[in-house]
Structures are given as structure tokens and as C-alpha cells.
């Protein structure tokens, strides 16, 4: 390697000797490169003067282990160079038998102390034993600048702060060791202080940060180019006389196996629930809204908390099958919503589909007269929907205008900024599906439970031992018929008919257990132990599904409009009219009906309650308000002829007056009205 600085003393007669010394050093300090599989070790030293006081070595220890040493002998010139040779010989000889770096530094100190001490000369040494098979390094240090570890892909280095006194100061010293893991793509750097004490043109020192920056820019280069590259980069960043010492570098680039890509365990971020929880507890997720660029889901690879659990408690991992409307974020572990919309997570077999249904945003003027939109997510129509168009949406519908002669069917809520005329609105359709499903599932689950209990009781009677049961189902069937059970296959068909496709495949028992139960029934092979257990499992699963469906049936399907004219509104949730009122409309809602304006000639039916400012006739017809027992009616002013029903009780208003009426449930029951 060329010298950096040619400020040599003009010793004419000794130039020959210097040249010889230089040649010897070139041999021992020249660039070294060792390959081990896909790992590498490189080292090199550039003396400041003709001959230097730095030393480095890379020694094979066998079985993928190497000892890397960098040392800095105090002083300059021929004296330092001679001591350097002694250190080198000591390290090499002692390494034949000494297996730990801390012990090596201690032994070198012990061996050379008697030579160093009288010369008042010291040296610093860093010794690292790397095990490239197991991927780790043991570091020991005698007063030398700390080794630096660059993790794969890191933007800064870590100092390995292993401490120890420099050599030659005290005779008998222990040297501590620090162990670091060397993973795939990690790099370990040893160096001499010539690098960090070089001066920048501004008068400061290159320092640890400057060295770090130089090395980060060179990691990933072919190994043989790293050290020359580092020396060039240092020269480029220093003042003309900035380099004042020998420059020594030794690097270990750990190889190893690239880690296997982690399983796609997901955590749903949009509402902080685990995907597994979401799928286990809910048939159809209560899809949270997400916004474009928002993290929809975050992958936590191999994190135990993200594993799902089957009904039997065994952990299972959910694998991502597909993405729709989401894209990978800037780090591969995050899925980002590609548009504003609704987040959905669906199970398809054992795989998971994550999708964001973007909001469908359309200008009303681009909707052809009489045309329709059918979309599973949310829909926004910008403008007046006044040409007989139809909107069917799985999510919410928002019309930024009025609706005339239109039809809107939404799984969620419907909002119209204007009024509606001759329009049909259905809100909360999805919810109504679930209410029906919940009822069916509950029914089936209860029946199955009763069936299982009956069978259990029968098992315990002496007359019905296991072989009797297997021998003949007739007695059992007789008993079951007496209990007025529907036939088992009939039950199964009823359940299937009631459940939506999406829910059915989420409950493995339904598809796995039922066929075998059916077969057992048909073949007369119903056995107590296994089939009862299966029945019980099925019953449990269906109960859970029923609870889920019941929960989801409270999904909001509200309607909010300015006013309504000659229209039909059906809502799972509440209906609220904020403007002038309703005229000749039919409004049926499970939630409350609240009308700020006038109700004229309408039919209002609610399972909760009706509130209106004023109620009167419209187009010759009186207004009818109907609620069940337990609901409430609050009419600010009702005209003559207005009919109010609570359960089976009827009140006909005989003169204009406010109507406030409520029938508590118990009272209604007692008087027999429902």
C-alpha cells in the first residue's frame, strides 16, 4: 500500500535500512482477504511514516473461527516498528494454544511487559474471535478504540464497549470479554485511531461519526474494495496535513443464511384487534372505516400474540392469501389502505383476505337515467339523484343532493342532503339479514342442545346401552319423536338455509361435523361417545354464531334526510328528518323516528318510539303512528283523527292536542296486549 505522507527525515545513510524495514512491513501489513462461505474478513494497514507502529492480523482458528487483531504501538519510526514485530510474533505464537481473546490480550501483556516497561512504551490492542458458523463474535480490548458493529441495513453503527487497560502499563491484568451476535449481513469493524484523529479542513476531528459515515457508504461493496475505498474517502475528507498517524482497518462481513421470510401473522391496526380474534368472534366484521394512506393492518412476524386459536385451543397461523384495495407500505410489514373506504378481513379456507373497499364516489350527472349502482362498500353520489336511478350498496349511501323517483338499498345507513320524493329507501339490510340468521341459529342451537341432553339421558338408562343404541335406532327415534324434535336432517337443512355462505365456512364444525353426523344417522351408526361430542361441539359453535349474528344485527342502518314526500322508508336503525317534514310517506324503523317538522298523512311505525313536532292530515288521509309496548310517542301537536297505537291499544285523537304516551312492558303484558 502506498504511504500517505512522505514527510520522512532526511537520513541519507540510513535510507537503505529504512527501505529494507519497509519491505518487511509491506509483507506483514499488506492487504489481506479471507473468504469463508459467503462471509469475508479483510484487513489492511497504511503507515504514516516510512514504517509504522500499527499491526493487524487475521488468524484462522479452525471450524469457521478466526481471530482478528488490531494493535497500535506507541511512538513512531523504527522503534515502534520493531515492537510491532514482537507483538505480531507474540500474538501468533500464543494463538496456537490460547482459545479466548481476553486471555490472549492478557498473555501478550504478560509476555511483553518486561520489554515495554523500561522503554516506557505502551500499546493498545483489540482482539476479536469470530465464529462464522454460529454467527457470533467474542471481543476483548486493551485500551483500543471500541470496535463498531453495523447491523444489516442499519443507518448507524453500534460501539462494542468492551473495556480494558492498554498493554505495558501494569503487569498482571484481566481483560473482560463481550459477546455479540453476528447475523446475516452484519459487519464488524476494527480500526486504529489514525482514522478518528485525522483532522478535517475545518479544524475538527473526523471522529467516530466521520468514520461511521465513511464505512456506511462502503458496506455492500466487494470486500477487496472496502479498505482502499475507506482510505481514499478519509483522504478526501481531511485537510492536507490532516492525517497524522497510521491507518489500519479490519472488517468481518458475517455471511450465514438469509432468514426465511416470516409467516404472515397479521394484526389489524384499524381497530386494534387481532385478525384471529376478529374472525373467530364475528361472522362479518363490523368493518371499520379507514382512510387512504392509513395503516390497515400490520404484520408482526412470528409474534405469539398474533396467532389465532381454534376452538380446541391449538394455535394456528393465518396466512395472507390476498389483498384488494391495500398496498404494502414503505416497510413490508404494513398494509396501507389505498383509498378511503371500509376495511374487511375475510377467511377463505385457512387463508385470510384483507381488503379495503374504497368509497365509490360518483357524480350524479354521470349516472344514466334509470341506471343502477351495485357496490359492496360505501357510495357517495355528488348531486341530485333525480332520474330514477337505483343505488344498492353494502355499506353506507350518501347523496349530496335530493332523490326523486330513486331507489336506495343500503347495508348501512342512508343520508340525503336534500329531500326525497317518490323514493324507496331501505337501510340496514345487512343487519336485517343478521337478525334473521341469529334467530335461525339460536333455534338450531337450542334444538341440538335438547337433542344432546335427551341422548345423554337415554345413554344412562339400563335399557339403552351402547350396543342397544347401535343395534337399533328405532327406540331412540321414537323417544325423539315424542319430544317433538324435527328430524335431524331437517334441522340441518333448516340451518343451512338460514345461514349465509360467508358465515357457514367460518365454522369448520358445520361443514366437517354435520356430514358425518348425517351419515351416522342414516346408517344407524350413531354412537354415544363420538357423536354426542360432535353434537356438543356443533351446538357450541352455533351458539357462538348466534350471539355474533345478534350482535351484528344492531349494526346501524339509519336514515337521515331533509324531508320526504310520497316515499317509503325502511330502516334497521333510526329515521331522522331534519327539515320541513314528511308528507304521505310510509316509514318503518326498528329504531326511533324523529321528525323535526310536520307529519302529514303518514304511516309511522317504530319498535322504539316516534317523536314529531306536529302531526296532521295529508291528502285527505290521517296519520297513523304505531309502536309496540315499551315504546314511546311524543307528538308536539296532533290533529283530530290522528291514530296512535301502542301494541294493541289504540288512541284516536279527538281534538288537536299534544300526545305523550308510553306503555311500560310489564303493564302491557298484564293487560294482555303485545
Amino acid at each position, binding site marked *: 500500500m502506498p504511504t500517505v505522507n512522505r514527510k520522512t527525515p532526511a537520513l541519507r545513510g540510513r535510507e537503505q535500512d529504512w527501505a529494507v524495514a519497509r519491505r518487511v512491513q509491506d509483507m506483514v501489513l499488506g492487504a489481506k482477504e479471507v473468504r469463508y462461505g459467503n462471509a469475508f474478513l479483510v484487513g489492511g494497514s497504511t503507515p504514516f511514516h516510512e514504517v509504522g507502529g500499527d499491526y493487524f492480523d487475521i488468524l484462522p482458528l479452525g471450524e469457521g473461527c478466526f481471530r482478528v487483531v488490531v494493535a*497500535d504501538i*506507541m*511512538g*513512531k519510526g523504527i522503534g515502534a516498528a520493531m515492537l510491532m514485530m514482537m507483538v505480531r510474533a507474540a500474538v501468533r505464537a500464543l494463538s496456537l494454544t490460547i482459545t479466548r481473546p481476553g486471555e490472549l490480550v492478557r498473555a501478550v501483556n504478560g509476555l511483553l511487559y518486561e520489554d515495554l516497561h523500561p522503554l*516506557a*512504551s*505502551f500499546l*493498545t490492542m483489540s482482539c476479536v474471535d469470530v465464529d462464522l458458523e454460529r454467527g457470533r463474535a467474542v471481543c476483548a480490548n*486493551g*485500551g*483500543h*478504540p*471500541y470496535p463498531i458493529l453495523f447491523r444489516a441495513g442499519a443507518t448507524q453503527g453500534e460501539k462494542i464497549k468492551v*473495556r*480494558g*487497560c*492498554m498493554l505495558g*502499563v*501494569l503487569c498482571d491484568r484481566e481483560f473482560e470479554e463481550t459477546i455479540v451476535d453476528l447475523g446475516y449481513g452484519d459487519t464488524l469493524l476494527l480500526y486504529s*485511531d489514525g482514522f478518528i*484523529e485525522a483532522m478535517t479542513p475545518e479544524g475538527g*476531528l473526523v471522529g467516530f461519526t466521520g468514520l461511521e459515515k465513511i464505512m456506511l457508504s462502503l458496506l455492500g461493496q466487494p470486500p477487496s474494495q472496502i479498505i482502499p475505498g475507506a482510505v481514499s474517502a478519509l483522504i478526501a475528507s481531511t485537510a492536507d496535513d490532516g492525517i*497524522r*498517524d497510521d491507518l489500519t482497518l479490519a472488517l468481518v462481513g458475517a455471511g450465514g443464511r438469509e432468514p426465511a421470510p416470516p409467516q404472515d401473522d397479521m394484526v389489524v391496526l384499524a381497530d386494534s384487534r387481532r385478525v384471529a380474534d376478529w374472525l373467530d368472534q364475528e361472522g362479518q366484521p363490523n368493518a371499520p372505516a379507514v382512510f387512504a394512506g392509513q395503516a390497515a393492518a400490520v404484520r408482526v412476524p412470528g409474534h405469539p400474540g398474533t396467532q389465532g386459536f381454534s376452538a380446541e385451543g391449538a394455535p394456528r397461523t393465518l396466512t395472507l392469501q390476498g389483498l384488494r384495495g391495500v398496498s404494502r407500505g414503505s416497510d413490508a410489514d404494513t398494509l396501507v389502505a389505498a383509498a378511503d373506504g371500509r376495511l374487511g378481513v375475510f377467511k377463505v379456507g385457512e387463508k385470510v383476505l384483507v381488503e379495503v373497499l374504497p368509497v365509490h364516489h360518483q357524480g350524479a350527472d354521470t349516472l344514466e337515467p334509470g341506471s343502477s349502482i351495485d357496490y359492496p362498500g360505501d357510495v357517495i353520489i355528488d348531486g341530485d339523484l333525480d332520474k330514477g336511478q337505483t343505488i344498492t350498496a353494502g355499506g353506507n349511501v350518501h347523496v349530496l343532493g335530493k332523490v326523486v323517483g330513486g331507489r336506495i338499498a343500503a347495508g348501512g345507513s342512508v343520508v340525503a342532503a336534500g329531500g326525497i320524493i317518490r323514493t324507496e329507501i331501505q337501510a340496514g339490510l345487512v343487519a336485517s339479514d343478521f337478525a334473521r340468521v341469529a334467530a335461525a341459529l339460536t333455534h338450531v342451537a337450542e334444538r341440538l342442545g335438547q337433542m344432546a341432553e335427551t341422548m345423554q339421558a337415554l345413554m344412562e338408562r339400563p335399557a339403552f346401552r351402547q350396543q342397544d343404541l347401535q343395534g337399533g335406532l328405532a327406540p331412540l327415534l321414537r323417544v325423539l319423536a315424542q319430544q317433538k324434535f324435527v328430524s335431524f336432517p331437517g334441522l340441518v337443512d333448516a340451518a343451512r338455509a338460514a345461514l349465509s355462505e360467508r358465515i357457514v365456512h367460518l365454522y369448520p364444525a358445520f361443514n366437517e361435523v354435520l356430514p358425518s353426523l348425517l351419515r351416522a344417522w342414516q346408517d344407524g351408526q350413531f354412537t354415544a361417545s363420538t357423536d354426542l361430542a360432535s353434537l356438543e361441539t356443533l351446538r357450541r359453535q352455533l351458539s357462538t354464531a348466534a350471539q355474533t349474528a345478534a350482535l351484528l344485527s344492531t349494526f346501524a342502518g339509519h336514515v337521515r334526510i331533509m324531508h320526504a314526500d310520497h316515499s317509503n322508508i325502511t330502516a334497521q336503525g333510526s329515521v331522522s328528518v331534519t327539515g320541513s317534514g314528511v308528507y304521505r310517506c310510509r316509514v318503518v324503523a326498528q329504531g326511533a323516528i324523529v321528525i323535526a317538522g310536520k307529519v302529514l298523512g303518514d304511516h309511522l311505525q317504530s319498535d322504539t318510539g316516534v317523536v314529531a313536532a306536529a302531526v296532521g292530515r295529508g291528502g285527505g288521509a290521517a296519520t297513523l303512528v304505531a309502536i309496540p309496548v315499551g315504546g314511546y310517542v311524543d307528538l308536539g301537536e296532533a290533529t283530530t283523527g290522528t291514530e296512535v297505537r301502542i301494541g294493541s291499544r289504540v288512541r284516536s285523537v279527538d281534538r288537536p292536542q299534544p300526545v305523550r304516551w308510553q306503555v311500560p312492558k310489564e303493564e302491557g303484558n298484564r293487560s294482555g296486549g303485545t
Partner: protein
Amino acid sequence: MAEPKRIRWEGALDMGAVPEFVAAVQALFEAGVSVEVDLSGVQFIDSTGVAGLLNLRRTAAGQRAALRFEGFQPDVAEILEIMGVAGLINN
């Protein structure tokens, strides 16, 4: 007891300056006299500087002179720490 002798050093304690520094401090050594060396003006020290401090410590012990170094600047203190000699400079 005689008054302690004080000396203040300005500038880097590197290869060029160390011989002069060591000579200047050693000249103050006298049995039974304390020498206090103020290093608050030293912003940089290299290995020869560290060696110089250690050697002064030894020489002082040999001459039974009391020696004390003071005013270590942070960069200097860190280098002494890394080299593991911080405790030895002022024992």
C-alpha cells in the same frame, strides 16, 4: 509544608508537544513538594500524550513527589477511559 507548584499547559498533548511537556513538569519535581498540573487548556491528547502522563506518574512516584493532574477536558477524559488508564493517571 511547602507551597504546591502549579503549571498550566495549553494546546495539544501530541507527539510534537509531549517531550517539552514532560520536561517542563519533571523540572518541578522535588521531594516533599506537590506539583499540580492544570490541563484545562488541553483539548486533544494522543497516545504519546497518554504515555507522557503515565511516565510522569511513574517518575513522580520514584522521586516521591506528589503529582496531581487537573482539569481534564471531556474528549481527553474519554480517551483515558477507553485506554483504561483513567484511574492510573491520578491514583
